[in-house]
């Protein structure tokens, strides 16, 4: 009897439970994941290889094959010499226009929205809930309804066709969702912290700049990502509220790709598209971790 027990401890299960690498469950999960990733990565692959090929090689057809002879000429052409209408300075003009639109729009919309969210969660005033509801309704009105009225408004203000008009439009359209984001984040900050700061003699701005802002890096990162990608990818407002000289990069890209004269230069088009998409892509890669954390933090309380 005693021997049996001793055997049991030697032979019987002990420690971590072994797991098979190729169980049916693993094959199903990883198989699905691999297929889905391939499906999403394939277009990117085609774009990258095509942009590195010369036109003669593209005409041969093999869309998926890697380039026989790598050339960066299409990238250079897309950036600096591709023609849109009368301008033949490529995407570079659009890139700098987009930067000039992006930076003030992001800065302005986030500054205003963060203060909005802070005031709506910490300094509730009579009618603050009504104000917030109205702002939220704004998020559900389709853009198309507002396009023409805004044209008139901008014209009356003398901002139509300029960059400042577009910056204003981006700021306004970003307001509902950003305010919601900041309000929910600040609502999750313990109320006693706010009370302690008031007892310590900090006022509206003191509490905001010295207590709340240093605590809210994640939510600011989320807001920056949302705004950078949103504004960078915007096409509609850019084409409507500016004029050809000031078109953002997306509009310029469209004009290059959709030009009707001459040969369709697929390699240049592909390179131009990748260049345009690079900015949001880089932003995601740099701040991915903070982004996830911030989204989670903002979502806790409603």
């Amino acid at each position, binding site marked *: 009897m005693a021997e049996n027990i001793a055997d049991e401890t030697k032979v019987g299960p002990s420690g971590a439970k072994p797991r098979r690498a190729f169980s049916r469950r693993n094959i199903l999960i990883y198989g699905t994941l691999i297929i889905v990733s391939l499906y999403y990565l394939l277009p990117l692959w085609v774009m990258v290889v095509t942009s590195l090929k010369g036109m003669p090689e593209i005409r041969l057809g093999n869309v998926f094959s890697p380039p026989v002879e790598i050339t960066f000429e299409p990238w250079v052409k897309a950036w600096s010499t591709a023609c849109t209408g009368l301008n033949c300075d490529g995407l570079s003009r659009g890139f700098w226009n987009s930067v000039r639109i992006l930076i003030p729009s992001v800065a302005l919309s986030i500054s205003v929205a963060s203060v909005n969210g802070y005031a709506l969660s910490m300094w509730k005033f009579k009618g603050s809930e009504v104000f917030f509801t109205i702002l939220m309704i704004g998020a559900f009105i389709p853009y198309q309804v507002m396009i023409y009225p805004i044209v008139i408004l901008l014209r009356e203000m003398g901002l139509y066709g300029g960059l400042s008009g577009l910056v204003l439009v981006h700021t306004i359209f970003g307001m509902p969702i950003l305010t919601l984001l900041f309000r929910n984040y600040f609502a999750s900050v313990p109320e*006693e*912290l706010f009370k302690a700061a008031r007892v*310590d003699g900090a006022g509206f701005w003191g509490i905001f700049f010295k207590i709340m802002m240093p605590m809210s890096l994640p939510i600011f990162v989320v807001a920056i990502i949302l705004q950078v990608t949103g504004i960078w990818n915007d096409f509609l407002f850019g084409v409507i509220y500016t004029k050809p000289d000031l078109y953002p990069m997306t509009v310029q890209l469209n004009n290059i790709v959709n030009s009707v004269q001459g040969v369709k230069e697929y390699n240049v088009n592909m390179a131009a598209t990748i260049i345009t998409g690079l900015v949001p892509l880089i932003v995601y890669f740099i701040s991915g971790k903070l982004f996830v954390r911030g989204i989670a933090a903002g979502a806790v309380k409603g």
Partner: protein
Amino acid sequence: MTPQTLSTTSSVTTSSVSVRNLDLSFGEVKVLKDLNLEIGEGEFLVLLGASGCGKSTLLNCIAGLLDATGGQIFIKGKNVTWEEPKDRGIGMVFQSYALYPQMTVEGNLSFGLKNAKVPKDEIAKRVARAAEILQMEPLLKRKPAQLSGGQRQRVAIGRALVRDVDVFLFDEPLSNLDAKLRAELRVEIKRLHQRLKNTMIYVTHDQVEAMTLADRIAVMRNGLVQQLDSPQAIYKRPVNRYVAGFIGSPSINFLEGNIKTGAKPMFIADGLSLPLAGYAFAATPVVGKAVFGIRPEHVVAGVAATSQPFSQSVEIEIVEPMGSDTLVWARLAGQEFRFRVDGQSEFSPGQNVLIGFDPARASLFDTASELRL
């Protein structure tokens, strides 16, 4: 509703904080109702009550974090009803510590002083003094996240300390700590009060904290002060049934019955008649329904019971040993009855035991009004 009962002791000389006819409503809900409170210079007042009784609300009103709907608040003789919190001469300690997470301990302590534009060398001096008093010099460069719960609350107390205020407000400061730390910090707060001699107002739902710390306790319920008196007076002579039941652990025994007057007033309940000769009635007793309250620790069991003015044999139902003493459950006059005996005594369920007590130590309440008779 029970009227506001105040039996003020004469220890109050000058008043440091004075709350006069304070009303506070959130919309339709009246949280504080015509509340009056005079707190003496250097007094330690505890606001005690169950959650939702308005004690924290009252503290927030005194701090200026909530605006009163009606009435006035004076601190050091100055009407501060409309003042901002920072101008009231108060320091506040919160339940959740409420330390600024991105600042070091030193930053937390000096934040209020920087806002008040206190000169740098003065800030350094005051921070050093607070750190010395609370023994946290080695922690000054740390962030709150690197501190334990007890250390965090000490920093929070320090933050009130550096501001050199007249009145300290504590909003359940020990509720987030474990039992051992709570006992340690409780003593520390008492020591702090003895050293600084500031006026302190302390909100808690823990009667042990209230009894041990307070010069006077204000027992609150439904936005009204039920009783304001020294801990001993509240324990011995609760003004109504609610206060009697709230104070004391294990809680007081209540026996429902009737008062019989005559040459010798008696309390009669289902085969039980208690002589009330020694009981100090507030007014001449009248016949009527009443509740007899006697604390479990005022009941003696065994041979000693025979020497008590009242004694009777009861059957033990449940025995709850608690180490130092044992709580025994039985029935008296058909009603639940608990008494406390020494932890060494051996009792078991089913056993009959003689218990006795002195009705003079009890409290009698009118059944309808629940007021002390």
